[in-house]
């Protein structure tokens, strides 16, 4: 059965994933909109940067995050000067690294959905007195519903499932940065296979159900891009 320590990791995982998903939607939506609409020469490089976590070993990302966010890293120095301390081995550090690691899973479905809308509904809205921002919320968002659903589900599920980055940036501190995937690792290391089964099986069931529901609701698989 699940121990109270296991429940603590579940709670923490849920908090990290929820917060990271919200941040990804908040920043990922304008980014995806820009990527879907722009003719800028920087589109390629920005796309590549966003997609990097898809191909990098999580340990590479984790390593550089540790370096950048650490006491002597450029961002670490800023956060220290602001009196925030450093981010590694904290809850905030977990959220930040999850955000970067899972961002492509939010940006890409949104970008695909936005591109699919095309120019015509936007022009129609403009001739009907809707400002660009108004058009975004009254036309683009409702027409991209499945894109947002996909982005939210994949962003959340992928954050729940990460291991390498959270282990490196978050560490393995009980109640503070120990998430489910790390807890499973701990159980296995300690040869506590039955505890590992409960958590691992739970995660497996969760991931399967989420994808099943998603693929059942979103009938157009083209708007779901899984790159892993």
């Amino acid at each position: 059965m699940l121990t109270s320590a296991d429940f603590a990791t579940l709670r923490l995982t849920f908090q990290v994933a929820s917060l990271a998903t919200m941040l990804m939607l908040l920043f990922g939506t304008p980014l995806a909109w820009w990527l879907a609409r722009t003719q800028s020469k920087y589109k390629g490089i920005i796309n590549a940067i966003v997609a990097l976590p898809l191909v990098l070993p999580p340990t590479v990302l984790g390593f550089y995050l540790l370096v950048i966010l650490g006491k002597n890293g450029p961002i670490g120095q800023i956060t220290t000067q602001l009196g925030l301390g450093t981010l590694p081995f904290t809850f905030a550090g977990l959220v930040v690294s999850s955000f970067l690691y899972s961002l492509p899973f939010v940006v890409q479905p949104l970008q695909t959905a936005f591109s699919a809308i095309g120019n015509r509904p936007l022009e129609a809205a403009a001739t009907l007195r809707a400002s660009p921002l108004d058009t975004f919320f009254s036309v683009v968002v409702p027409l991209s519903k499945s894109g947002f659903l996909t982005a939210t589900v994949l962003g959340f599920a992928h954050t729940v499932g990460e291991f390498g980055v959270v282990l490196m940036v978050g560490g393995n501190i009980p109640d503070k940065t120990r998430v489910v995937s790390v807890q499973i690792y701990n159980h296995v290391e300690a040869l506590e296979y039955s505890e590992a089964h409960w958590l691992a099986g739970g995660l497996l069931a969760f991931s399967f159900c989420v994808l099943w529901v998603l693929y059942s609701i979103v009938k157009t698989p083209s708007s779901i891009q899984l790159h892993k």
Partner: protein
Amino acid sequence: MNASIIAKFKLSYGEFKLDVDLSLPSSGITVLFGHSGSGKTTLLRCIAGLQKAPEGYLKINGEVWQDSDKRLFIPTHQRALGYVFQEANLFSHLSVNENLNYGLKRLKNSIDVTLKTHIIELLGISHLLARMPENLSGGERQRVAIARALVLNPSILLMDEPLASLDWERKQEVLPFLMRLNQQLKIPVLYVTHSKQEMAQLADYLVLMSQGKVNATGPISQTLSRVDLPLAQDRQASCVWAVRVAQHDSADYLTQVQFSGGCLFLPMIPVAIGEALRVQIFARDVSITLDISTQTSILNILPATILAISNDDMGQSVVSLQVGENQLLAHITQKSAAFLNLSLGKPVFVQIKGTSILN
């Protein structure tokens, strides 16, 4: 002409250059006519502000929407226009009624609510209000799109080949409504098309375009009869006359219609006396004679004078004639023209073999 639409634009991309300087009437339907690639759609998009011409001046009924010298460019959503696209572009997540209300909700000044009811009735879409766009036929969709633009009571209605994506049957679902609109609403319409049929049926005023330039402008009756324009040389060349029903002759099954300067007999048409009609007369149906022949089966023989003659390399002549206050085109052979010794100003008679009613 009461010119209250002034549109000057210069723009180029790649090989294409648009360079126009137009004054257009503030009422009726103005058809922008030309082949694809002539720039008519680009011109319409510049007027709507969907495309920004680097050099441009646009004034609609006293309001300046663009003046590049003063760096003025009113964005599309702040222009009091209606736009109908080639595809209906209805919002697929909204019902027909919600589509109609989309623009209404965003108007700064509220307008007479009866206008919406009137437009819905005019376009025959009252039974469709609760439907979603995916459950409409192509013609119904386009009628909803037209209604959606009109309920905003725009100061100009811009239509970009609204029938081009429809098959013949679907076109017939929309065309009669377009003709009715013109009679019932006082909104100037700019209508882009490459269809001669739509042009003849709808245009009051014509703008002929090719390769980004305006070749000719003028009232349809005068412009179609200009022998210097390629339209008059076309096999399907025709003139369009505005006429009024004068009387019905039920014994002979004929209807007499009047135009300024004469009258015509048409096969009987079931419309009330006094009704306005558009009559199309093809140049190939018009022949020229020097005296009224009493021995002919042709009913419509009218006195005319020759305005212009243009010869091609294939033995054909295009002759334009003045009939009353109207102009008419005749396609005849150069041999006949020589035989009749036709010259400018010469009084002749035209025999009209056939006519067709456009509305």
